[in-house]
């Protein structure tokens, strides 16, 4: 339940690390795939691109990682952002609309403007969320639910309910292209993750966020501008979602107002929680979130590769999620260890003399 940070040995330091159990889970999932597809870990160079299942996981996981990243900071402040899926759709729609209507869809300038429009709108949307939560004092879940519902309508309004297909090489690069043999999306989200880690951990931002999420009353009394921080965090989340939206639409060269980012908020929250960040706010772990997102993506890939029929996919997922949570739960491990110890004790011939223990009230 609790642990002091005093690590006594390097081994313990590793197992106590908050990333240890998510990493174990990810490794187990990947290994399970290997059993079904022997060349699952194979990565080869094909046509100048890295090609392989692992690359796919990272590639398709990239937007989820981004969305979860924003979600992590929101959750750290004790909030939640349901609107990310809609933001994904809106940003893709705006960018594709701009590109498809521009006379020169293939030019870098057009693509940059398109991205600028999408990200700029995201800032606005995030600010609305932020204001509702921080200033008006609406509960985060309901504040962002508004945009979740309306936003998808806005996205469809932008695309006129159709799927906007674009042909633009520079735009294709964002989510579907390659750079230095790697999918650009992976590099981009790695960059954003890195930047966020730097931003939160080498400035005081992380500490202040954790403080606001951990104890809002105390945070006000130490002079933290909680309102501004909270509002900012929603803007950041929207930005991440918008970037993910660019990726998603760029990857298929089309904007789908209705389906892009559908239910991604649930996946993102799940990723954050699997990564060890509590929904109650406070301590957050970006590394954990990345692992969590990869776990979710790997799980989908697993479903495809080992050929689970669609009817049973959800049952399979349910069991995996529960198993993952149990493995990660210190309480579960403690109970398991206690049971093991008890079994060993009773197995020993010179067990302690039987005691007349009475369970009080039990």
């Amino acid at each position, binding site marked *: 339940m609790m642990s002091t940070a005093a690590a006594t040995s390097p081994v313990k330091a590793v197992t106590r690390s908050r990333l240890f159990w998510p990493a174990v889970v990810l490794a187990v999932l990947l290994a399970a795939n290997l059993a079904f597809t022997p060349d699952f870990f194979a990565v080869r160079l094909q046509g100048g691109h890295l090609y392989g299942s692992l690359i796919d996981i990272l590639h398709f996981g990239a937007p989820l990682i981004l969305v979860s990243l924003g979600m992590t900071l929101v959750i750290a402040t004790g909030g939640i952002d349901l609107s990310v899926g809609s933001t994904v759709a809106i940003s893709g729609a705006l960018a594709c609309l701009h590109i498809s209507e521009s006379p020169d869809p293939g030019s870098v300038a057009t693509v940059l403007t398109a991205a600028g429009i999408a990200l700029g709108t995201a800032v606005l949307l995030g600010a609305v969320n932020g204001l509702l939560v921080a200033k008006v004092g609406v509960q985060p879940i309901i504040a962002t*639910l508004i945009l979740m519902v309306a936003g998808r309508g806005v996205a469809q309004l932008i695309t006129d309910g159709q799927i906007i297909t674009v042909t633009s090489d520079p735009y294709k690069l964002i989510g579907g292209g390659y750079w230095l043999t790697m999918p650009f999306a992976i590099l981009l989200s790695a960059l954003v993750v890195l930047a966020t880690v730097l931003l939160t951990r080498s400035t005081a931002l992380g500490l202040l966020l954790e403080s606001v999420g951990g104890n809002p009353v105390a945070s006000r009394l130490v002079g933290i501008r909680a309102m501004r921080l909270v509002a900012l965090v929603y803007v950041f989340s929207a930005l991440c979602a918008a970037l993910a939206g660019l990726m998603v639409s760029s990857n298929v060269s089309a904007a789908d107002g209705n389906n892009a980012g559908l239910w991604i908020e649930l996946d993102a929250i799940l990723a954050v929680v699997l990564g060890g960040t509590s929904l109650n706010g406070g301590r957050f772990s970006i590394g954990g979130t990345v692992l969590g997102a990869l776990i979710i993506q790997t799980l989908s890939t697993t479903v495809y590769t080992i050929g689970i029929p669609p009817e049973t996919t959800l049952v399979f997922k349910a069991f995996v999620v529960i198993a993952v949570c149990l493995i990660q739960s210190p309480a579960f491990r403690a109970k398991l260890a206690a049971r093991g110890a008890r079994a060993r004790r009773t197995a020993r011939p010179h067990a302690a003399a039987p005691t007349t223990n009475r369970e009080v009230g039990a």
Partner: protein
Amino acid sequence: MNAQALLTRLRGQVPLLVTAVLLVSMFSVGSVQYDGFFSGQVVLNLLIDNAFLLVVAVGMTFVVLTGGIDLSVGAVVALSTMVSAWLVEQHGWPPLLVIPLVLLMGTAGGWLMGWIIHVFEIQPFIVTLAGMFLARGLCYTISVESISITDPTYTSMAQTRIPLGDLFVSPSALIALLVVAAAFVVLHYTRLGRNVYALGGSEQSALLMGLPVQRTKTTVYAISGFCSALGGVLLTFYMLSGYGLHAVGLELDAIAAVVIGGTLLTGGSGYLLGTLLGVLVLGLIQTVISFQGTLSSWWTRIVIGALLFVFIVLQRLITARRR
């Protein structure tokens, strides 16, 4: 001192009153705006059409009051419709056996989730999300098609109209109101109810005060499971079919209704009657939309969002000013 006590208690009800007033104003605006809107039947239809949501939201209220969340409700509703339809139609079981069985199943499922949440200290979000996957998945393993129900018990429950003067309600609506009344009594007049609030206020304190934390938690999720299953039964009456894609996203509607009703998602504070109002708000928005009748699909969503926005912001601003 007694007057003061009364005053404090009244102050606690302000958000509820504000919500009610806003609801009435919304109805009035609708009546002015649309023909045929200003009628008792429109109000009763709110109950008839949202009976299952109301029941589910009541269960959700218990969970949210303890500071938890139950994402599985929509899927459990779907599973209940599926199991009912499957057993009644394809196996010929009698409804009077099937309905209690389904309720038991929901309750047991909820109880199990609560148990896992408490004993293994896993966040409710994940456990109930897994529950959601499982319940939906089980639907599909039964059948990916929808199953129609022609059983006379179900059809009569579906089509019975209880007259109220010129107007009518459905049995489901009455059942839902009964559930609200029962839940109100449980929350406010039993130890369980008070333990629920205590747990939401501070789980640590509740434990140290010697309250039965584990039992309360599992009970609360069991109640939510029961309500979901009952919601499923009501939905079966309403739709006369079982289907794995029924009630998709219902969990969000239920949570929204609870939160709009003034219950804090962090637990410990809220009102059951607020949940009733929350459900009515959502239903009324839906009604306004369908009376408008000129909105394209996307404008429907945008207007729902906008109405929600106006409602929430007004609710917040008015209650905040009052303090």
